[in-house]
């Protein structure tokens, strides 16, 4: 762990070389389970290039007008949150750290340089560092702590993309299914509680839960939202 430069406030952690970041982000944009066919490769490379060019424009817009940071937030919230949430133990910490990452990113946006490194890699570097900072703070205050976050094994951008897409798909579930998923997994309510709140039978809630998860699974496999 080292500071990115004196006084700019963005601590960074080198858990992957920039080159491998880039290649892994590229891999992550590929649909899981599909081998890239050679004849498609130039078209898909073009698609990626234009997606990156588009993101570059968004970043430049936000650098000159911070109010435009919105678009980057919308694009990357699920990635950053999912990355953090899988590495910390509770929701409050995940939310805290996610806020910290985006506030730091907004405040230091001008220090982000393109050089082919995707914006998400920059965000995740801030995130990784925030997690480590927090666990080090915790270990100073409470000597007995869990293992520090294990980036080597868990840091897989493909998994991050996968999770981010799942979170996006939840938002587009039919309303009743979406609510059951929210209440069950976010609020961690019991089936009985949800049944009471929604005025449905417990069996109906379990069915909605099943249908939601089956639908999500099918959409994740289909590769399309």
């Amino acid at each position, binding site marked *: 762990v080292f500071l990115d430069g004196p006084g700019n*406030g963005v601590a960074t952690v080198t858990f992957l070389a920039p080159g491998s970041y880039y290649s892994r982000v590229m891999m992550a944009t590929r649909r899981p389970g599909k081998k890239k066919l050679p004849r498609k490769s130039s078209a898909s490379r073009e698609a990626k290039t234009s997606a990156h060019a588009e993101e570059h424009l968004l970043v430049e817009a936000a650098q000159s*007008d*911070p*109010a435009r*940071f*919105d678009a980057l*937030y*919308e694009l990357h*919230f*699920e990635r950053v*949150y*999912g990355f953090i*949430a*899988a590495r910390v133990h509770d*929701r409050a910490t*995940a*939310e805290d750290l*996610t*806020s910290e990452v*985006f*506030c*730091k990113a*907004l*405040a*230091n946006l*001008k220090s982000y340089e393109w050089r082919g490194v995707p914006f998400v890699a920059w965000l995740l570097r801030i995130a990784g560092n925030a997690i480590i900072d927090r666990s080090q703070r915790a270990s100073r205050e409470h000597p007995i702590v869990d293992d520090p976050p294990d980036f080597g094994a868990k840091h897989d951008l493909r998994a991050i993309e*996968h*999770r981010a897409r*799942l*979170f996006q798909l*939840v*938002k587009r579930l039919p*309303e009743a299914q979406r*609510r059951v*998923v*929210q*209440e*069950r*997994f*976010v*609020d*961690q309510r019991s*089936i009985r509680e949800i049944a009471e*709140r929604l005025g449905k039978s417990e*069996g109906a809630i*379990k*069915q909605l*839960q*099943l249908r939601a*998860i*089956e639908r*999500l*699974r099918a959409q*994740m496999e289909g590769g399309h939202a």
Partner: protein
Amino acid sequence: MPRNLPKRPLAEQLDEVVQAMLVSLQQRPEAAPHRTLAPLAAITRELRYLPREEFRATLKSDLQRRASMSVNEGTESAAAATAKAVHYMRPGFTSITPYIIVNGASQFIDFLKNAFDGVERLRVPMPDGRLMHAEVAVGNGIIETGDANEQIPPAPTDIHLYVNDADATFDRALAAGATSIYRPTDEHPSGDRWGALKDPFGNNWYIATPKDWTPGPEGLRSVQPYLHLREAHKMIPFLENAFGAEDLGTHKTPDGRVLHSTMRIGKATLEIDEAHGAYQPKPCVLHVYVPDADAMYAQAMRAGATSVEPPTDKPYGDRSAGVKDPFGNTWYLNTYLGR
């Protein structure tokens, strides 16, 4: 193991996996008992990390605040900018914002998007799915909305909306579910190209493209509340006394009835006229940013307003007071605390 299990509905089996996962602090090993369940269980494991929707929305608006405050702060950190830049209006807001309470706030937001290119800024849902609060940017203005409930009845509002092309906007609004009162015409007394329609939520929209209009203090605001009042001429001195409003131009009939009046509060304007025909009073809710909510509340009370809520600090970062004017409209007088 699967063969020993009695055949039970998949929904039951899946819920057992979910239940075990939710109560367990440990990451479960691959516990899914059979082929159908395994991929579903994999999805549920990821769903443990699902973010709260409210958190996503709140952080977004927090970042928007920080962003708008850091505009003139160079490379200074957002935290320092937040501490320093205190302004009495929440970023993105002007002095007067209509707060339109409806049944079906989500559908209303869809209407604003479809009809007027509204951009959702914030949505705070309640556990039952209704919206506690939402903000939609329309042009350079904002419309706030929320679902009605037992305590807060619907409060539709009439809005004078400035757009680039009244005819095109009018058609889009019709396609989005509005009904025409009259199509845009050049014959309107304002001199603007002006049409009127009604949305499914009880609001009237006066869609106008300005021609020879005297712009307000900040130029034209896209969203202007339009209040049809009984004895409208009495509203003018009330607004002056209660909120320090300025009369930017009033046209009256020879017998003193208000044909049209533009009143300025702070940096924004609202319009009033004498209720007539299809344009009857609709007690509405207006959200006004003022430099000092306590002082303005006291001033409004002296001018004859009744109290809805004395000034209090709100968790969303405003100091806010509520009053009712003698015409039944509710005014929230807010000062943004800049956190």
